[in-house]
């Protein structure tokens, strides 16, 4: 056990100290940071040139418009100044508000057409003011005004709870399946290459004269799993930090508040037994990837080693697509018990609420048994596989392995 931990520690350290791991971990954070940074700089530099100035001979009218609308340039008050600013591209345009013969008018001058939001707000402002002026001029009674203000009603009745739950399910499904897929593909390659790069090297002879092949194999797999856990923990911490930033940010807080129930539902769907499926799925694929790495003909073929595992992971991923709206299909039920596929399909059923506790337990037991059996078999073959340098095909290796359990 002690030597297994030495191998685990060595494998773990070697992986996390590599540049590729650092880039892989920090990549998403850098990308998000870069996107936010660029958006911020772009928004700041563009904000002044996207503003619209409001000009009017009637100061109460101008002030009323400015009060009702955000993002306007309030400093420019004359047409001359507005024209100059527009010429220098410091303004997107200017709006001249006026009243001619009891009619409210707005003239927009700009290098491009008016934004749809500002146009709607302007029309709304003009309509409200025109209506008030019309009522005043018509000298209507309060009752008549009330009658004229009456508008037809269109009301939508949506079962909000069910709708939100459905969205939560879809978001959870996509998040989970994508997470499983990305982690499997990434670490299958790492595991296969880590093992294949040692294939046939004499250092394996030294190592196998120091510890058993099974102990070494388990140490390697555990080391790689620790690297995966490190990545998941870093992402969870990063996600938590991002969430904290969002709820304390004045710009993002309304968004978070609006989708609070959805976010909670998604977190609930992800941080439950599905996380166990994610981890066990990663374990079985990592073990298979290690085996793939061990049966390549020589260390130089390390890059090819992960291909069969990656293909299997992709097959599982793409098989889920046709069934995301048909989770009661028999095929989904069958696949939710088949190792290598159950990590995709059972979480789908759990999210949908169509898998009982017994079914989940049975699927987990099959997955655990498959991992145990698989690890035992590979452990028993590992020394032979790692020390040989012949060029048998993968199938010949499998057959040889089953025929000669030595």
């Amino acid at each position: 056990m002690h030597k297994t931990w030495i191998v685990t520690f060595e494998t773990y350290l070697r992986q996390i100290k590599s540049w590729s791991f650092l880039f892989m971990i920090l990549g998403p954070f850098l990308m998000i940071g870069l996107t936010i940074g660029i958006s911020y700089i772009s928004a700041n530099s563009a904000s002044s040139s996207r503003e619209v100035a409001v000009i009017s001979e009637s100061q109460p009218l101008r002030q009323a418009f400015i009060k009702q609308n955000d993002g306007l340039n309030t400093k420019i008050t004359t047409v001359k100044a507005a024209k100059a600013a527009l010429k220098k591209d410091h303004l997107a345009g200017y709006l001249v508000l006026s009243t001619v013969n009891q009619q409210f008018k707005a003239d927009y001058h700009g290098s491009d057409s008016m934004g749809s939001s500002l146009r709607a707000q302007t029309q709304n402002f003009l309509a409200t003011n025109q209506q008030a002026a019309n009522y005043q001029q018509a000298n209507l009674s309060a009752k008549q005004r009330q009658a004229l203000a009456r508008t037809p009603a269109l009301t939508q009745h949506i079962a909000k709870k069910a709708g939100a739950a459905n969205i939560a399910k879809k978001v959870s499904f996509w998040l989970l399946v994508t997470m499983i897929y990305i982690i499997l593909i990434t670490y299958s390659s790492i595991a296969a290459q880590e093992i294949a790069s040692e294939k046939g090297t004499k250092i394996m002879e030294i190592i196998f004269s120091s510890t058993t092949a099974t102990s070494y194999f388990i140490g390697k797999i555990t080391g790689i799993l620790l690297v995966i856990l490190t990545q998941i923990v870093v992402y969870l911490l990063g996600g938590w930090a991002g969430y904290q930033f969002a709820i304390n940010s004045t710009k993002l807080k309304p968004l978070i508040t609006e989708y609070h129930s959805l976010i909670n539902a998604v977190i609930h769907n992800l941080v439950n037994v599905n996380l166990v499926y994610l981890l066990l799925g990663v374990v079985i694929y990592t073990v298979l990837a290690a085996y793939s790495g061990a049966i390549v003909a020589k260390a130089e073929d390390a890059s090819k080693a992960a291909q069969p595992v990656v293909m299997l992971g992709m097959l599982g991923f793409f098989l889920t697509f046709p069934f995301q709206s048909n989770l009661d299909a028999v095929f989904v039920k069958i696949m939710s018990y088949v190792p290598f596929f159950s990590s995709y399909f059972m979480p789908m059923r759990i999210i949908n609420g169509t898998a009982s506790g017994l079914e989940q337990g049975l699927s987990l037991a099959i997955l655990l048994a498959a991992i145990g059996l698989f690890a035992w078999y590979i452990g028993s073959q590992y020394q032979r596989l790692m020390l040989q340098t012949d060029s048998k095909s993968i199938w010949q290796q499998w057959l040889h392995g089953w025929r000669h359990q030595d």
Partner: protein
Amino acid sequence: MLSIQHISKHFGTVHALNDVSFDVPDGQILGLIGQNGAGKSTTFHSILNFITYDGTITWQGHPLSANDFDTIGYLPEERSLMPKLTIEQQVVYLARLKGQSAKETRAHIDEWLQRFAVKGTRKSRIKDLSKGNQQKVQLICTLIHHPKLLILDEPFSGLDPVNADLLKQAVLTARDEGAAIIFSSHDMEHVTALCDQLVMLRKGDVVLHGTLTEVRNQFGKTELYVTTDWTPDRLQALPGVAAVTVRQPRQYLLQLNDPAAGPAIFEALTEGHYIEEFSQQPPTLDEIFRLKVGEDHA
């Protein structure tokens, strides 16, 4: 003591080892010689349980198991280390796998680097070292945990005479500490200098086994080294002389048909007077090796 009794190994129809038996007592060195493909590495792999075999191999009276791994030092035929690691990281990792703590190993690394005259520091990366220095680091990895059973597959290959001497000293020190040592070599000079006993394999069969003296004496004292003013023709005419080889001016090697011819030749050469050199010896190990290999080709 390492005891190998009647081990055989077949790879398909190829007999890699055929009823091989020998012992390596503690504090002794056994040299395993033979041509390429004779079965030397297969013997080592059998000892280390890398392959299955028929027969019995015991270490200190019991079959070698994982519990004995810490007492083994193994140097494989081809050198292989982890190129990205520093010398210290590499040596500490392999020593930890042999049960020696990192602290203990770190405390002695500099001493070992000095002992093997490695050009580099403990912080040097393996990939930055020359081939020879990498080989010396691998030897340090093999020896630093003071193994009780030392298995060295072609340890002298690629070493210059100075470094070969450093290795010889290290092997002799391990022997003096009581280790049982088995090593293979194609260089009979090293085998002659180090071994208490030797085993020669030919196509998986043991064709020679014994101490150096025993093995050489099996072939009789058929070589006579003399220094004389006699001409080669005159020497060739002596009774029992099969061939004469000139080593240096006045120095000859006479091949005898029969070792018993020695005294008569001595009488004829000296005629009761002083002679600078008259030494009757068995063939050298190198000659015996060639002879045995030649038997196979005959």
